[in-house]
């Protein structure tokens, strides 16, 4: 019975390790995206055809960087998830540290998703470019992930309490 439990825990840990690797890959992709974005904006004329969308907008030329700020929020959220997953791999599934990290990541994803949604809606109504409809879908997805992380953090916190009770049951 104990062996079966250990096998199950190993299986879950393997999945967590896989997820951790996936998050690391995503962090690297985000870094490449930031570098690529900076290169295309400052060293090429790639962005010129789209500049008309932003020209007369609230922040003018800098409107194109608003989306980048939201991406940075998501990126920081990913770093928190990476920390939380790393702690799970080291200390086991139920620990308070991971719960706190996931909660912060969830908040960041929710904020980033919501702001991006509002921004995309404003751009959609203003420019009538269908391109921003896809962005809105992505924002919703990000908000759902953020909310899910919030729920996972609560489960981890409750699990941590149950684990403590179980450890102190002789």
């Amino acid at each position, binding site marked *: 019975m104990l062996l079966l439990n250990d096998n199950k825990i190993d299986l879950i840990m393997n999945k967590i390790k896989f997820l951790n690797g996936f998050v690391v890959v995503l962090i690297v992709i985000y870094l490449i995206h930031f570098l690529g974005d900076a290169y295309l904006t400052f060293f090429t004329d790639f962005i010129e055809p789209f500049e008309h969308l932003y020209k007369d907008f609230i922040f003018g030329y800098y409107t194109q960087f608003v989306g980048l700020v939201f991406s940075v929020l998501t990126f920081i959220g990913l770093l928190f998830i990476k920390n939380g997953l790393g702690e799970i791999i080291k200390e086991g599934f139920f620990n308070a540290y991971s719960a706190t990290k996931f909660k912060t990541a969830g908040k960041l994803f929710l904020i980033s998703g919501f702001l991006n949604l509002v921004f995309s809606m404003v751009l959609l109504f203003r420019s009538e470019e269908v391109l921003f409809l896809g962005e809105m879908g992505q924002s919703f997805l990000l908000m759902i992930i953020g909310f899910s992380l919030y729920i996972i953090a609560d489960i981890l916190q409750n699990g941590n309490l149950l684990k*403590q*009770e179980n450890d*102190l*049951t*002789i």
Partner: protein
Amino acid sequence: MPIVVNLDVMLAKRKMKSKDLAEIIGITTANLSILKSGKAKAIRFSTLGAICEALDCQPADILEYIEN
């Protein structure tokens, strides 16, 4: 907590060491220490039964309710 564990008293009465009791009932000395110090949140019936068997006593000899 209003429940007090009088395991020390019973061990002294039976002139048994904690280490020996832990060995007989099959738990670690660390866990027995948690139980003796009153830090434990709960005790399993199986553990309680094993302690009663090893010390030849009743659960009431080990656990006592004291009103706050």
